[in-house]
């Protein structure tokens, strides 16, 4: 069995992936929930049944053309740290990280398909793309699902569609989502009205790690909630429309801030740089929130010559599990804060302090 760490691409590589609108849209994801006929859902099935389902599904998934040279592993073979790293990479949900015997993961070579087996449903298959690529992600997972249905007998009802453990996913079993970086809307105090109007359209806005999490680092996830009574394409198109508007709001907010309140913006970004470049102890949460401002500064050309991917990489490698993985000893939270600060100071050595006026060509 391959080791997940030699399989996963490095944090530096993973943050260099590019896609349309990737200054604001970090990534796009479409997941489908599927279950096989005749077996209890993972939350209700006893261990032997879960193992049986896993042993049936895993080879079927691994044998797909899209999953050539893929990685698979049972959840009980991962250490708690490795699971947390997968969560920080957004490859598995926190719920899946809590699973053990009878659950597993199949991940393809370039990390564009990731399948969770026996999470809440027998299958949660996801297509992942950098930037705004919802339609591409939907087309990819649609083809993936069509190929897989030739090997597995999915529970499907003529009236209700694909049957899922939770009635909220019934029908299409689809969740279309995008991860957005919205520091402009937050600074311009527009984020709450935006969240409210997005909610009114039947879409959910969540934090960095999905359901029930905080919007650390000004990162928000927008996704559909309703899955029954509409086609997948209609759902994807609605998300696309809403995202186009959010992107516009964010761009406008950034421009307006620079025009109307430049001192407020420079102050936030300058302080963020000051702390990150000089701190000797810093929590993961503070790091993420300040890195978000640093990234805004890079986007606004306040750090001429600075590499945006460096900030993205720091965002990933300063998170608790990634940080722990880089040192051999088990660290306490306080020790992590010290090492995190050392790492950030070191990495920011090459980045000079922000200029007070944005450079040309924004």
């Amino acid at each position, binding site marked *: 069995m391959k080791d997940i760490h030699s399989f996963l691409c490095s944090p530096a590589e993973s943050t260099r992936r590019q896609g349309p609108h990737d200054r604001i849209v970090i990534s796009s994801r479409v997941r489908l929930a599927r*279950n096989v*006929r*005749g*077996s*209890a*859902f993972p*939350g*209700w099935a006893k261990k032997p049944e879960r193992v049986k389902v896993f042993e049936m599904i895993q080879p079927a998934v691994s044998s797909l053309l899209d999953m050539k040279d893929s990685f698979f592993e049972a959840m009980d073979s991962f250490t708690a740290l490795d699971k947390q790293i997968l969560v920080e990479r957004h490859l598995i949900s926190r719920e899946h990280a809590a699973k053990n015997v009878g659950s597993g993961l199949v991940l393809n070579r370039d990390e564009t398909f990731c399948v969770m087996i026996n999470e*809440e449903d027998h299958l949660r298959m996801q297509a992942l793309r950098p930037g705004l690529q919802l339609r591409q992600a939907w087309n990819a997972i*649609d083809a993936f*699902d*069509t190929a897989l*249905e*030739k090997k597995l007998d*999915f*529970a*499907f*009802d*003529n*009236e*209700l*569609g*694909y*049957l899922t*453990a*939770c*009635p*909220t996913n*019934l*029908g*299409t079993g*689809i969740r279309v989502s995008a991860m957005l970086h919205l520091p402009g809307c937050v600074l311009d105090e527009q984020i709450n009205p935006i969240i*409210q109007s997005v*909610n*009114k359209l*039947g879409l959910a806005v969540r934090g960095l790690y999905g359901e029930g999490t905080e919007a650390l680092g000004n990162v928000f996830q927008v996704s559909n909630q*309703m*899955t*029954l*009574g*509409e*086609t*997948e394409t209609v759902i994807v198109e609605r998300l696309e429309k809403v995202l186009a508007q959010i992107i516009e709001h964010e761009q406008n907010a950034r421009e307006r801030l620079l025009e109307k309140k430049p001192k407020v913006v420079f102050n936030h970004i300058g302080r963020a740089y000051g702390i990150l470049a000089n701190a000797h102890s810093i929590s993961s949460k503070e790091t993420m929130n300040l890195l978000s401002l640093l990234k805004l500064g890079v986007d606004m050309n306040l750090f001429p010559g600075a590499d945006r991917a460096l900030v993205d990489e720091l965002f990933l490698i300063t998170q608790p599990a990634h940080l722990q993985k880089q040192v051999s000893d088990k660290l306490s939270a306080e020790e992590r804060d010290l090492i995190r600060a050392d790492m950030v100071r070191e990495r920011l050595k090459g980045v000079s302090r922000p200029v007070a006026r944005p450079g040309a060509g924004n």
Partner: protein
Amino acid sequence: MQCCVCKEKPATVHLTQIVGDKMQKLDLCEECAKAKGINDPTSFAMADLMLGLGASQELDQSAAGAELKCPRCGFSQADFKKSGRLGCPDCYKTFAEGLSGLLKTMHKGTRHIGKAPEALRSARESIDRLKTLQKKLAKAIEGEDYEMAAGLRDEIKLLTAPPAKSR
């Protein structure tokens, strides 16, 4: 304040939930709260939190009540209340009655119109077609348009005939 269920005893359990931009308030006496499983946070929380306040009660109102169990997997109404999730694909048949109201509040529609497994797609289409033809037929008969009815009847016959031809 009176209990909003029995309207007799004083309300001591107060629940507030915000759905969209509407606030829902429930004031219950201890007994009614217990009867609804509200004082037991594990049995109350999940189904209602995930599916909206009143979801678990909605299921209870179906004919067989809380005693209903899925013959395939043994999952019960009470289990749903606890977890907000079902036991197996067959549970959708078992609890169909209670679920239908729930699905209405939760989704855009109650009928799936998206993707279907390829193997079922043609069958699905002919079922849809059959339903529309039957509706048309009923209308034609009602309107005493027997010529139209005869045509429709033949079409239906063709559709329901065993597939002798190979395409």
